[in-house]
Each structure stands twice: as C-alpha cells, then as structure tokens.
C-alpha cells in the first residue's frame, strides 16, 4: 500500500483520485490467531499495531462489533494531556504524550496532534494550591507545567471572564504547554491502516458472543462470524467491559458504565487557541480545526449503556460555559451526543494479564481514554507479548482495589460517578 504524502496526493489528484486504495483490508476471519483483540476502538487498534511493530506478533485479529472506531475513540472531546497529580499517572500519560508527538510520522497518517496547551483555571487560593501541587508534580515527573497569572490568562485566552464580579473569580491557571488536541477518528484510522499494513486482520461487524474455554483457560471466542481460536485473547472494550466479561462468566467487576455527553458549537473563525477547563464546575473546551467549540462536562451520573444523556446535565454544562466565557451565550449549540464510559473505582484504568488464564484486559478508562491511546496500546501489547506488565502499566493492576493501593487522582473513593 502506498505511503501517504503531499506527492501521493498530487499524483492522485492528477489522475482524478481514482487510484486510492482502501485504508485497511476487509478480510474474512481465519480459524485461529496468535492473538485476538476484542474491540476495534483506539486502544484495541493501537494494541494490534504495537504487537506487530514492537513484538513482531502479526498473526493478530481485531474483532469489532460495529464499524471501526464506533466507540469512544470517535465520541470524545479529543484532548491529549498528562497534567496529572499522582506519579503513576504522570509517568503513564507523559509516556503517552511522547508517543503522540511522533504519532503522525510513525503511522504515516496525520492525526493532527496540535500541542496548543491545556489551561486549568483556578478560582480560589485553595484550588490554586491544589493545581500548583499538581503542576509541581508534573515538573518533578519529567513533564511540563507552568503557572499563569490572571493577566497572562487574559492575553492567552481572550473571552475568559476575569472580572472580580465573576461568580468564581479566576486567581490563576495551570498550563501544560505540551498538551493539546488531535483528530479523534484519524487515530483509529491511522492505527488501523498501520496495523493492517503489518498484517493484522481487522474484522468489522464481528460481535463476540462468547468465549471458548478449556477448563478455566480462554482459548478463543465465538462471534457473529463463527468460532475463532487464539493463544491469547485480549479485551479492550471500554464502555462494554462488564458486558464482555459477563460472557466469560465474570458477573461482578469494579467497573460501572456511565453516560458522558459531549457538545459542539457551530463553526466559527479561530477563537480559542488552547484547551481550557473551568474550575468552578466541571467543563473543558477547545476549538476544532473546523472551527466548532468542542466541550463537555460531568457525567450524567447514573449507570447507562444508552449513548444518550439528559437535559439537566446539558443545562448545567451550558451554564458553566457561559460562566467561563460570557460571550459564548450568543453562539449556538450544533450537536450533542453521548458515550458510554468505563468508570473504575478509583478513576484510573486497569491494564493487566487475566483475570482468567489466556485473557488480557484493558479497561476502566473513565473519560480519559483518548489521550492514553498510544501508551495504552503500547503497554497492553507489551503485557500480552511478554506476559508481564511494562513499567508504565505495572501499577494499574486489578488487584490494587483489594490491596488498597488505589490510584485516586480525585480522592473521591470507590464512587465511580465522582471520578
């Protein structure tokens, strides 16, 4: 398959764009593979890619229930960042950011990673201390964090309500300059194409309906397209983790599925040059290259697999928007949608071998999965290939809940809707 480049674009343009080939093949599933990855979202596709690229394991199938990338990889607000508090998180997400920085080259696919920065607005001295603690932790963990004064914020983000009469006056902000946004779908497509080029079979419309077992050991799956065997079965189905584990007989698990809504305004000319979050509530906003303001808030706050939210949360998010940026009251909401989040019990993911023999599990991304895609794929592939975790995912075990060694960024405990 041809490399993508300005030259190939020109060549194809001259021949009427008739010679482009499919970005990935549409193969029939083989009877068996070395590794089956259940879930053709960002994490599953990235895992397949790194298995092939880093470990030479190419006899791999990615099984996707619907169309490729139909889960949260195509529903998120596209933010990439590593502005975390706890050292385990900083190490993991900063590793991810470093993979992001070279991802377009690596995949030969422009994922449009734009390092325009993320700014967390702080609204009280106590909140400022919290953010400064986090920024300092980022600096100590090898990342980047900068504190901005209200005057600096005014220059960087015109439109933010910095007036003293604001309900939550801004006292400063934590900026991570290397953070930014990327084009979410392109990440799925780029990994799919790159994995496909290394020989991975990507099989869409192939829902897994059960697991094949030999004793306790998982030896394959049954699917809409028949039985498929594998030495190792890896699961990366955030949003549906409990559903898929139930097929393997695991009835209770430290995950709840919650709906999160996201929103986009109409397209406008460049308006906002970084990602901004509002500390007086829960809101994050950026502007897409197409011009829409992309934003989201808190979870609706109840278990759901419906990919649809409700009105009270919509009203709350718009209230936050206007509290942060009073000018956007005049703009118009174009579209809203919902995604199903794998909310874990401490707000951090699980990337592990098990819980059954022959099974590998990647889940619990809450609503931070998009930015993690490269590191998640990289470390999950490592775990699958070597049967032991990579240093970056070693703390993200399943047993941490039992041991009381949680990684609780927000400090809210085992209440998934609060993470």
């Amino acid at each position: 398959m041809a490399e993508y480049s300005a030259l190939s674009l020109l060549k194809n343009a001259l021949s009427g764009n008739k010679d482009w080939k499919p970005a990935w093949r549409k193969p029939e599933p083989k009877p068996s593979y070395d590794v089956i990855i259940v879930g053709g979202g960002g994490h599953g596709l990235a895992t397949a890619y790194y298995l092939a690229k880093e470990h030479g394991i190419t006899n791999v199938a990615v099984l996707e229930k619907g169309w490729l990338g139909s889960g949260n990889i195509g529903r998120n607000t596209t933010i990439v960042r590593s502005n975390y508090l706890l050292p385990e998180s900083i190490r993991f997400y900063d590793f991810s950011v470093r993979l992001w920085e070279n991802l377009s080259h690596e995949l030969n696919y422009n994922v449009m990673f734009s390092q325009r920065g993320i700014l967390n607005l702080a609204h009280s001295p106590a909140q400022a201390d919290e953010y400064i603690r986090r920024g300092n932790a980022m600096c100590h963990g090898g990342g980047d964090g900068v504190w901005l004064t209200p005057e600096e914020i005014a220059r960087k983000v015109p439109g933010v309500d910095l007036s003293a009469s604001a309900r939550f006056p801004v006292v400063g902000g934590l900026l991570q300059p290397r953070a930014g946004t990327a084009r979410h779908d392109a990440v799925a497509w780029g990994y799919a194409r790159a994995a496909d080029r290394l020989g991975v079979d990507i099989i869409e419309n192939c829902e897994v309906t059960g697991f094949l077992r030999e004793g306790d050991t998982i030896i394959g799956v049954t699917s809409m397209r028949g039985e498929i065997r594998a030495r190792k079965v890896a699961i990366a189905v955030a949003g549906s983790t409990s559903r898929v584990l139930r097929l393997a007989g695991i009835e209770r698990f430290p995950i709840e599925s919650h709906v999160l809504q996201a929103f986009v305004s109409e397209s406008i000319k460049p308006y906002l040059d970084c990602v901004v979050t509002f500390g007086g509530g829960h809101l994050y906003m950026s502007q897409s290259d197409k011009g829409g303001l992309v934003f989201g808030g808190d979870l609706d706050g109840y278990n759901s697999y419906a990919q649809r939210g409700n009105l009270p949360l919509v009203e709350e998010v718009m209230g936050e928007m206007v509290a942060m940026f009073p000018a956007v009251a005049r703009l118009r909401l174009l579209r809203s949608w919902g995604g199903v989040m794998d909310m874990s019990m401490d707000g951090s993911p699980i990337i592990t071998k098990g819980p059954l023999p022959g099974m590998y599990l990647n889940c619990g991304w809450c609503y931070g999965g998009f930015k993690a895609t490269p590191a998640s794929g990289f470390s999950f592939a490592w775990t699958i290939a070597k049967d032991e975790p990579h240093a970056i995912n070693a703390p993200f075990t399943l047993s941490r809940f039992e041991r009381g060694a949680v990684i609780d960024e927000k400090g809210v405990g085992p209440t998934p809707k609060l993470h």
Partner: protein
Amino acid sequence: MSARRATGGGLIDRSQPIRFTFDGKTYTGYAGDTLASALLANGVTLVGRSFKYHRPRGIFTAGIDEPNALVTVLKDGVREPNIPATGIEIYDGLTAESQNRFPSLEFDLAAVNQLAGPLFSAGFYYKTFMGPVIGPLKGTRFWMFCEHFIRRAAGLGRAGYEKDPVRYEKMNAFCDVLVVGAGPAGLMAATEAAKAGKRVILAEQDPRLGGSANWSGEEIGGKKATEWAEVKAAELTALDNVQILTRTTVWGYYDGNNLAAIERVTDHLPAAPIGVPRHRHWSIRAGTVVLATGALERPLVFPGNDRPGVMLAGAAERYAREFGVLPGEKIAVFTNNDSAYRAAAALKEAGAAIVAIIDVRPEISPAARALAEQAGIAPLTGHAVTDTVGKRLTKVMVQHFDAATGRLSGDPRPIEADCLVVSGGWSPAIHLASQAGGAPVWDGKLQAFLPPEPNQKWVGAGAFTGALTTAEALSTGRDAGLKATGKKASRVKLPEVAAPALDPFPAAVFEIKAKGKAFVDLQHDVTADDVRLAHREGFVSVEHLKRYTTLGMATDQGKTSNVPGLAIMADARGLPIEKVGTTRFRPPFSPISIGSLAAERHWRFKPDRLTPMHDWHVKRRARMMEAGLWHRPMIYGEPGETVEQAYAREAAAVRRSVGICDVSTLGKIAVKGPDAAGFLDHVYTNVFSTLPVGKARYGLMLREDGIAFDDGTTWRLGEHEFLMTTTTANAGKVMQHLEYYLDVVWPQLKVHVTSVTDQWAGAAVAGPNARKVLQACVTGTAVDNETLPHMGIVHGEIAGAPVMICRLSFSGELAYEVYCGAGHGRHVWEALMAAGEPFGITPYGLEALGALRIEKGHVTGAEIDGRTTARDLYLDWMLSKKKPFIGSALMDREGQIDWSRLRLVGVISLDGRPLGGGAHIVEKADGNGLGTSIGHVTASCYSPALQKYIGLALVRGGKARHGTRAFLSDPLRKRFGQVEIVSHHFFDPEGKRLHG
C-alpha cells in the same frame, strides 16, 4: 417595487416598509419578510461563501435547512454568527453581514482553493502535513504551522469576545399533549386534543401558524388554506387550555417525554422590551407528544448545483406565495417528482417566466401536466440538468436522461435562466422521533426514511409520517389528536381539501453523473466524488462516510444532504439504501443559543451563600473569599496592610487577648432518636455512646474503603439528641452519607437526621480573654471553668437572644463556639463585639484561622484530601478497637499501611521566606531545584507565635523524618529553599493554653 417583488399576494405587509443593512448597504423590505426573502426581493442572490472552496453561494431554502445563506447579525453590541438568512425576520435597523470571505463577498481571495480542488479531496488532511522527521519542524511543529493557516481558512462567521449583555430564561411546563408543528396536521391534532379538554401546548418554529397552508395555494374547507389556518389559529388561541408558542423550535426529545424547546422571544424586534428575555428555554413534560413536524425537501445532485440562483422548488414556492417574492425572472425547474410542478405554477402566477421544466421521469401524472400547462410550458420529460453556468446563474445545460439506467445521451443544450428550482423528493422530519430512540425505517416508494415505532409516548401526524398530502395531514392530525387524548370519537369535522392530485412518489434518482463538481453537502463542500472516494478507501459505513468526508456535519446538520449522500454511497456499494443504514439524529434538531440553555445561570452560575453576619463583615472591610458556595471573610484588612500583615495581626490578637470568627458555615446536623448514640458509634471511628449529656467530642469519619472522610465535633444535647458539626465543604456529603446508612443499611435504627446548617449562626470566641468576654455578656448561665469545662456545653442568653455555648478550640486557645438562631446572628455577634471591646476583641478571617490551626497542627480538607488514612494523619488514637465502624474493615489493607505513604509532618522555612501550599519536598535538589518528590506542603503561613514561616506537609515516612532537613521545590512559583521537617504540633503541643 422591484421586479422581484410581486405587486400582490403573500403574507407580507406592503404598508410597512422596513429598512435593514446587509454588508453595509441599506435595503428595504416589508413587515413579514425574512432577511432571505427581502434580499431576494432586492435582487441579491449572492449571500455567502462555502466552507472549503469559498465558492459563491446563494439562498437555497426558505427555512432552517438552509446550508448556504448564513450571515452574522450585529445586535445588542455583540456578534451572532452563522444565522440562516432564511430564519431572520427583518426589523428596522437590522444589521447583517456575510461571512467567510476576504476581502469581500464579491471577490474572495480564498476562492483560489477551487483551483486545487482535486487536492482537497475528502480525507486529504490525513495524508499530508506530517512534515519532516528531523530538524526544527519535526514532531508536531510542521503540522501546527500548517494548522494555523487551515484554521483561518476554515470556520464560518467570526464570533466576538464581548459579554452577551442580554437575559435568557427557562420555563418548566407541563401538558397533556404537546403538538410539535402547527401545519394542517398539527392544527387538527391540537384542536382535537383541546376539545377533549386536555392541556395542550402547540409549538411552531415559524412566526405564523399554518405551516404548508401558508404556501400550498390549496383550499381547505372551502377557504384559501392560509385563511383556514388563520381561523383555526384564532379558535385555538381563544381556548384556555391551549398554549400556543410561536417562533419556538422543539429541539430535543429526552427520556420520560421531556422535550426541550427554544422560544425566540425578541429576535424579531429591534430591541427587547425591559424584562423580556431574548430567548426562553422550555423544558416540557408532555403526557403525549404529537409529532407533526412535516417534511424537508431534498435537492438533486448534479454538477453546478451550488450556483447562486439554484434553489429548492418548495422554497421558491414559499417565496412566491408567502412573501410575494420571485427568486428569479426566468426560472427553470428540475425535478424527479410532482411537487415541483406546483412550485412552477405558483412562480408563474406570481409573475415569473417558467423557461423549462426538466423532469428525469419519462412519464408524469395528469395533475402535474395540468400544472405545467398553468405554468405555460411543456415539460422536458426524460431529461436532466448536467451543469450550470455563471457566477450568478445565467444558463443551465440539459441532456436526455434515462432514469432507469442513469445514463445521459445526446448533446447538452443550454437553456437561459437566472434561477433553477430543484426538487429531489421529500424526507419526513423524523429527527425528534429518532432522538426519542429507535432506528428509522426506509420506504422504497417515498425514497425516504420513515419514523421508527415509538418507544416513548408520541404519535405522528402529517408529512412526518410520510403522508404528504394536505388531506392526509388533516386526517392523520385528527387521528393523532384523538390517540393522544385516549378518546374514541372525534369532536372535529374533517374539512374538504381542494388540491391537485399529485403523485407523491419520486423517481429513485438522486444524482446526475456528469463532469464537474456536484455537491451533496453544500455547506461543507462535500461532492459526489468525495463520497465515492470514501467508498474507494473503505469508509463505507454511514458513520465513516460522515466522519471521513464531513458530510452532514455542518450547521444545517445534513438536512438536505443526508439521503442523497447515503444514496450515492449505496450506489457505489451496489447495495439498496436500507442496507447502508442511516445515522442516528441527536439533539438539537437545529442549532440553539447556548445562552438560552444557560438561562438563569447566565450572570449567576451558582447561588451565593451568605452568613447572617455577612453585611457586618463587608462593612468592616473584610476581603471575602469563596468557600464552597459560601462567602467568608479572608482578612479584615486595615488600610495599607498586606494580606500577611493582616492575618498575622489577627492571629496574634487571638493568642494575646481575644478574637472572634464567623463559623456559621460549618455543617450542622441534628441527630435524634433512641438509637442516635449507637448510630454515631457506627459513623465515627471513636465512641460517642459514652459521651455524657452536655459534653462535646471531636470525631473522625472514614469512608467504607478506610480513607478519612470528615471530622468535626458532635455535641450531646440530650440522651437521644446530638448536634453534629462537619467541615464547611463536606456538610452536604456527610448529610447524604448519614441518610444513606439510615435508609439503606440500618433501617432498623430509630434515628432521624436533619440538616440545620442554615438554622444556626455561630461565632468562635478565642483567646486568653475569651471567658471574660462571655462573662461580660452571657446571662442565664455561668461560664466559669467548673460550669463550662473544656468540651462542655451550656445554654444561656446574650443580649436577650438564646444561645448555646460549647467550649472547644480549633486555635489551641481558651475558646468557645457560641451558637444562636440564624436570625439573631448579627445581634449576638455585635453583642460579643461590644463585650470584647475592653479586651480589644479582633475579628479574624480564614487566613488567621488557617495560621492558628497550622500552628496547632490541626488537619482540614487540605490534609483530609480523600487519599489519606487516619494513620497518615496520626489520628490513630481515634480508631476505636472496641467496636466496628464504617471503614474499620478495610482501613488496614496493605496498600493503606505501606511505608511509602505520605504522612503528616510540620515544615519550617530555613531561609526566612514563605512556603507555599502545593510546593513539593525533595530530599536532594538538582541544579534546577528538582528532585524526587517525597511529598508536598498542604498549607503554610507566617506564624506569629513562632515568628517563622511554617507549613503542614504530607511526606513519605512522616514522623521518621522529624528533625531532618529537605528542600522545598516549587518550580511553578520558582521558589526553592531549605526546610526542616518537624512535628506538626508546632505550638503548645501539650495543649496547656486551651485549659486557660
């Protein structure tokens, strides 16, 4: 009157001319015009530029489905971009400008993009701009360089940064029947439901009721359809049980029949009257919803179908009949169905010349033929338009066309025309039904998606159901109204309709494949070739098509492009359309103002909580700060004082003599009942059942996972009665926590909890002279050490107001908390101030409170941060071994007693400079002051008692590090320096002072 304005007809008021400005030029229209109709009447056909290629674009529709004619409205001193000119009612002084053009609409430099059209094919962004792998533009730099220009070229209108000065409001409404759409179907449904005595809300997005009756030219009940609608509207308006909302778009269908609507209250007025909001957001709870949302016309896809002058046929008919406006003088018609013939006749009647009717079908119905005759032209059946010519349309090219094979034959021939009206059939507006849940169903005869089976309580009516004729609209409307009421027999007579017997089914033709750019999505410049390219590259599912090409993602949300795009993909895949699928519609149906949804949150996002003493604090020059939703004094600054000087003065006054602090914000919960004491034993880590009546005890709560949750004192006021205090921040959470256990876990316990935070005002009086202050003002009780020992409680009066006094101390001094009814708060406070005057009583704020507690090593939310255990905070002594409590089972798991945990210590600045909360502590600092973090400072202050900068910190190892030195590392504030790690009990560790 211009040549484009008919001398009669239409629903506009020719006696009321209105002046407005578009792109700096002043025009005149009439009351009842939209900006689009008024511009057309003035002969303005070029109104916008497209998203990607910056192609000139005109007015394409007459409603919310408009993809092209988006303008920016300047009003109230702010900009409102991307408003369809087809939806703006003109008013005197309306100022609008075109968008996405530089330097002018007529001459747009970025139109050069068209030259490179094939390069800008679907998905081209993904294939390039990766840049070099080495050098200064490696990594993401090259892309970000290109992105800068791409972003500037993209986007549509320009938004402003000025605060939106207007008001929005929200209305919660309830009704038995909500009728969405006031066309003939909706009017019938509303009438039926209203006559059955139901509470009805009828919502119509246009300013006038009637829908298609206003432009169909038909007769209903022996009257002109528009007159029939007027009578119906008047009848409904007269009924008490009907609420009519015009200019109201129902845009969201949420769970439990909760519908969201936006009412544009004053957009059509030059200025909002005082007290009237710009938009009103409606959250409507409907028993049943009647969806009578009509249908949207589709265009045909052919080269040059985007040229200014090309317009939907139904829109042209509307302009002629509703506004008395001709979109052109020499009009050609291009269609695959009968409905465009009615438009041709209407345009002819309004004064235009119909120069051609080009129909892809070999045969047409007699009714269509009769209408063609009225239009004065013989239709060119079996023909298609293959191209258009002119910056503004001058010619269309026509060829023989075989609808069965899609093949063109013969030579193209030109037909001169300044307007081409197009119809590709009609799609029911099923958006709300799709939002409610369920997948739409393809109808092969109508070539359209029909609504799914309802899975919430709605009934469909009219064109929404695929029944396109007015007679069917009336009957299905009546039936829907009947169904919504649950009644059997209708109370409404069906009127007769006089209308041509048009064939409702279009030919299955969506695209004319000829050379040139044929647009599917006009606003996003997605062409038929882009759809085929997506297919070639494997992006064949509907969602992939949408995402790869951006088809249907523009502000019109694909209202005109959805089905044609799908049809072209189906054709490329060789599959029937129903196998290719449809996308799920999501809220909102059409774009809505963010301000309307924020409603009352605009300007006041959250409520303000003020203590009873608030005004006193403000008068006393307190600098207030936010704590939860409360406003609390941070410092009471004297002129010229810094914050540090102020709190050091206040804290020193407490240690030296006496201070007073407003503690009304502390959470207060009344816990009552025979099992109250036992319940508290469950809830707190320490024992409360042994607490004598009239005494208070400090308590600690854990979460189930064994992590510290909240602390505070709880007072035993009676055998079965306690007053629990919580931290300000956790008041609500603790209340819910208690209620949960009482309702769910231990329902057998006879305990009742009531939040009384707002009922009590509280003042802490602290310092060596605190008792003297109380002695000077408290009556009805003694306050000496015997009557009121440490942790004792007494009841008395201050200045006639009943008070409850507990001797407890956060500051480490002899101290009391004085509680009184909130209404007496300020009265008691002032009495305490007066009594304290001889002792120089000093009001102190949160900063001084913080300094005093840091000196004592007391923990607050900065240390009880949801990650620390009781052991981490050296509160082990509070963990009862005699009884289980919430959190006791899991608190000592390996991860929660690990050596590496962060534990509480004190730190002292060794360089005489301040420490900052959030600064990290490192054992060894490198040249940049960085190192391996072993913890962080949670709170810091200047200690007037120690005359040093001190802080509390959570560090790995905790106590084991007492007496060692480490480095402060605060790169964010660029503050580095040496600290000594010490016990967190800085001051009076034995607690002698509080026994005073």
